[in-house]
């Protein structure tokens, strides 16, 4: 059986179907995370943006003009929330909140990235990516995010004109390859 369409999931979730909601979150989590991580936010701030974006969707489920445009709606909402959080400056974060357990903002288990990676090529790519400009990192995160985004959606997520995405992607890929060649 084919996967349900996003419109079907939005319709079922707005009718109260938790399983449809869970599937929506699974389908678009990677995308929302890519937008949040592409905005120079601290880890805990990225986590807040991620959560706020999904809470916004809960309240907007029945109000989306075109459910098939959900990726664009999520990108725009996450980006706007990133801008607010960036403007807010540093917020107080009581450490004891984390001790309560289940703090979703807690970083994953630390560990050398190289050890996580299956082979040398992947660790070279990870290293080269980390040395790219922030703008290139943000763009490439969205370019590879699943499910695939249209140029319009990437433009909304980054606040850049659609026409500049192709050329910027080309430039960022060239930089990535130059960095990889330096290592190789």
């Amino acid at each position, binding site marked *: 059986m084919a996967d349900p369409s996003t419109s079907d999931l939005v319709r079922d979730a707005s009718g109260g179907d*938790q399983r449809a*909601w*869970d599937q929506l*979150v*699974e389908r678009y*989590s*990677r995308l929302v*995370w*890519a937008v949040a*991580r592409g905005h120079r936010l601290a880890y805990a701030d990225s*986590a*807040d*943006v*991620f*959560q*706020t974006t*999904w*809470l*916004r969707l*809960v*309240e907007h*489920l029945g109000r989306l003009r075109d459910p098939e445009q959900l990726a664009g709606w999520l990108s725009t909402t996450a980006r706007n*929330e990133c*801008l*607010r*959080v*960036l*403007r*807010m*400056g*540093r*917020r*107080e974060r*009581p450490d004891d*909140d984390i001790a*309560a357990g*289940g703090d*979703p*903002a807690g970083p*994953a288990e630390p560990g050398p*990235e190289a050890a*996580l*990676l299956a082979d040398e090529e*992947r660790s070279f*790519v*990870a290293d080269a*990516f980390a040395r790219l400009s922030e703008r290139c990192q943000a763009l*490439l*995160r969205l*370019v*590879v*995010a*699943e499910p*695939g*985004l*249209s*140029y319009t959606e990437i433009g909304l997520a980054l606040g850049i004109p659609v026409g500049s995405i*192709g050329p910027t992607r080309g430039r960022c*890929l060239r930089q*990535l390859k130059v960095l990889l060649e330096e290592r190789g």
Partner: protein
Amino acid sequence: MTMADVEPADRELLTVLRGVLEETDPVPAPLVEAAQASFTWRTVDAELAELTADSVLDGAAVRSAEAPRLLTFTAGAISLVLEVVGRRLMGQIVGPRPKEVEIRHAGGSMTVPADDYGRFRAAPIPPGPISLACRFAGSRRPIVTSWVTV
């Protein structure tokens, strides 16, 4: 992604990069679970007050954490103004006086009374997303505000 216009060699590199990012920067599982659990905040009977003004977006500079932030939410003729200073929150509903105000946040919620002028206050507010639910006496529908990170 729309990789149709990407050269095969670049497509291969992007595919490797996708795998690398999924491995080194995965969406944290507790966040996915929290997002799925956020469905319990769904309200069917309430009117949504959209965020219509946010002082943090006025002006260019990054502000200090202690500068007050003013948020305005609007639902029809009713508006709700929130002032956030550090982890303290003060607010006023301009319109009918609510019976009580519930401050909903990622970890739960707290309910505070409103005075005769529709004013209320709460502290400390945990960092992260919040939304307010105002309930009124009689048959008036409750109002919930849009979620916002504070």
